[in-house]
């Protein structure tokens, strides 16, 4: 009998505690590291202040822990050379959004008006991001989003100040469509049930999936849609309803702890024995934390898994830095990698613009290509969405890592531009702000 919590080496994983105090201490350490090289620059060093808006409470806390504690470490690395342009050391000011839109908007305004931040990094939840966008647009502050990924962020709620560093919900559901369509053809699947979190991201993801699948595999029919409120703790009734529909597969628009809860209860209830469950979000966070219990062969969706890009110098750097700082078991998860890319990208943009002014940065970001841990990636000029891939793969035990990864032989990597909405469709939706 195996048990996720019996392994002593796992205990250290659980002991990741992120709160404001820890963050401040790490940031202070990062700041202290900036002191030594300051003599390099004759100019007075003006800090570049970044407001970090991520949750350490609420539904997103589990996912954001590695990014929150990792970003000051990467900042310290940049600050060793004096910071941005060698004279603007990076300072992070952290605020907990609690995964709540009203809190996120309030903290964003406070960061901009009181803390005088130059940029905002965040948020986790799309609902929070949409609220924060109104604030950053009003105050003309640069916003790098690297987790919240509703396609509305870059289209229906577009602002020229927001740049999206992760695949959006259309790209993610498009990737699942590609993978599921292959399975539908191969396994002669006819009907499916959708289950999703009843909020902005869940609805958008599902909409994208249905639109894509109706073209890619019209023979598969959706026989039931189930929506549950965020934070559902008991899926028994949903699982029973799915079983009654006897689908060939279940399409999940579920992320976070709800996905963990659903998989845990669906597995124990035998649902995963009788139907496939392709496309649920299974990031490095889940692969590491549920290394014993995740069903092998389960088809998951990831946004930026380190193991897919270990050939990239930046990914190698992130992995080495993260493990070196936090322990050998701590490979950076998808979320940390995408935020690392956002910060590295900011460094590159400032170097290109030779300025930290937001106006100058917007010019060098628009439609430009940047080095990321996923290789060279270009921003879509129309939306400021990074053209980056999504990953669909089977959970598989690798001899190279202490936890399962996606089977590299069967993993499908779908590029963003292969599945995102075409320009005409985007133009119809694009918000034009004054």
């Amino acid at each position: 009998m195996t048990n996720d919590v019996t392994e002593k080496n796992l205990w250290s994983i659980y002991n990741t505690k992120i709160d404001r105090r820890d963050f401040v201490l790490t940031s202070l350490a990062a700041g202290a590291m900036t002191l030594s090289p300051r003599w390099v620059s004759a100019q007075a060093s003006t800090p570049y202040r970044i407001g970090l808006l991520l949750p350490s409470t609420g539904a997103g806390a589990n996912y954001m822990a590695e990014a929150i504690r990792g970003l000051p470490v990467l900042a310290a690395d940049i600050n060793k050379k004096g910071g941005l342009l060698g004279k603007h050391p990076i300072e992070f000011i952290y605020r907990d959004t609690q995964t709540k839109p009203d809190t996120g908007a309030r903290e964003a305004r406070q960061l901009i008006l009181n803390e005088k931040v130059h940029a905002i990094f965040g948020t986790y939840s799309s609902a929070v991001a949409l609220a924060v966008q109104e604030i950053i647009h009003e105050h003309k502050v640069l916003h790098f989003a690297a987790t919240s990924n509703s396609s509305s962020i870059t289209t229906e709620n577009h602002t020229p100040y927001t740049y999206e560093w992760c695949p959006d919900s259309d790209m993610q559901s498009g990737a699942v469509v590609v993978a599921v369509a292959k399975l539908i053809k191969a396994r002669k699947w006819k009907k499916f049930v959708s289950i999703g979190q009843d909020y902005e991201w869940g609805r958008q993801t599902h909409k994208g999936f249905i639109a894509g699948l109706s073209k890619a595999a019209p023979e598969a029919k959706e026989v039931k849609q189930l929506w549950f409120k965020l934070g559902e703790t008991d899926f028994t009734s949903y699982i029973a309803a799915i079983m009654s529909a006897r689908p060939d597969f279940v399409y999940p628009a579920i992320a976070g702890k709800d996905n963990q809860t659903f998989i845990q209860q669906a597995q124990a209830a035998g649902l995963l024995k009788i139907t496939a469950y392709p496309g649920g979000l299974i990031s490095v966070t889940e692969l590491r934390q549920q290394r014993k219990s995740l069903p092998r062969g389960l088809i998951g969706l990831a946004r930026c898994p380190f193991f897919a890009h270990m050939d990239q110098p930046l990914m190698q750097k992130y992995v080495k830095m993260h493990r070196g700082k936090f322990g050998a078991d701590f490979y950076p998860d998808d979320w940390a990698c995408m935020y690392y890319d956002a910060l590295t990208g900011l460094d590159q943009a400032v170097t290109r613009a030779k300025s930290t002014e937001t106006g100058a940065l917007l010019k060098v970001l628009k439609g430009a290509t940047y080095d990321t841990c996923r290789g060279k990636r270009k921003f879509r000029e129309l939306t400021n969405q990074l053209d980056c891939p999504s990953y669909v793969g089977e959970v598989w035990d690798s001899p190279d890592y202490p936890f399962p990864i996606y089977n590299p032989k069967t993993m499908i990597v779908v590029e963003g531009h292969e599945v995102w909405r075409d320009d005409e469709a985007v133009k119809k939706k694009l918000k034009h702000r004054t």
Partner: protein
Amino acid sequence: MADLNALLIQLFAGLSRGMVLFLLSAGLSLIFGVMNILNFAHATFWLLAGYITVTIYAYLADTFAPGFLLLVPAVLGATAIMVALGLLIERVLIRRMYDRELPEQLLLTFALVLILGDVIKLIWGVQNRRIFVPVTPMQAFGVFINPYYFFLIGAGFAVAIGLWLFLHRTKYGRIVRAAVYNREMVNALGIRIPMIYAGVFAAGVGIAAFAGGIFSPLLPMALGNDIDIIVQCFAVVVIGGFGSILGTFVASLLVGIVYSFSILIWPDGALAMIFLIVIAVLIWRPWGLFGTELRS
């Protein structure tokens, strides 16, 4: 036949959901019924107990061979710790609230939600904790079922029967019931009301802790679970009648089964159905299905 099977499996799902709700709400109802304290932190005690259960289980599993049986000492240990914590909190905080207005009670217990949430974060961090006990699904009604739910349903019935027997068949239970109706008279008889209240509060927290422990193999323990579930607990207690264990039991089953069938028939309206029942009860019988007007 397939349709009948679908109805049976949905009924079973509703029953198990109802029992989950009962185990969570029974203590809340008991505390309010006896002490007139609306404990907003009830689900937070449940969550804290879940974390403690996971920790004890992990320790035991590292010492002995991991297995289902280790859940028993883990759950009992967590329940004992939470009963002690309940006594302490009653003594230090809740006791000062007996004569205060409802908003003040709510403020205090909401503060407890925040404080205990931070305590959880400080001790266990932000990452979800879980116990993984591999369960082999069993076949029934033509589909698979998680057999652990039979245990949950059994535990729910056992707690319901145990509470009823305690309140109606024991001397201490009769004193508790008497205190509900006339605490001055009970006091005049030489019975120490503060002791009764402390015991009831600890028992309420203990039931929540027991529920938290036995849920831990089904649910990752995560920050925010308590807030997610407390609203449904209040819905159950409002429908059943504050202070009525029988009412809480019936309301839990009603809510569980209505919710379950709504998901089958009208999934988008499942949650709305529950709150339609709450509204109907509040309009036509504000003291709840099994509450008494005295308590209202």
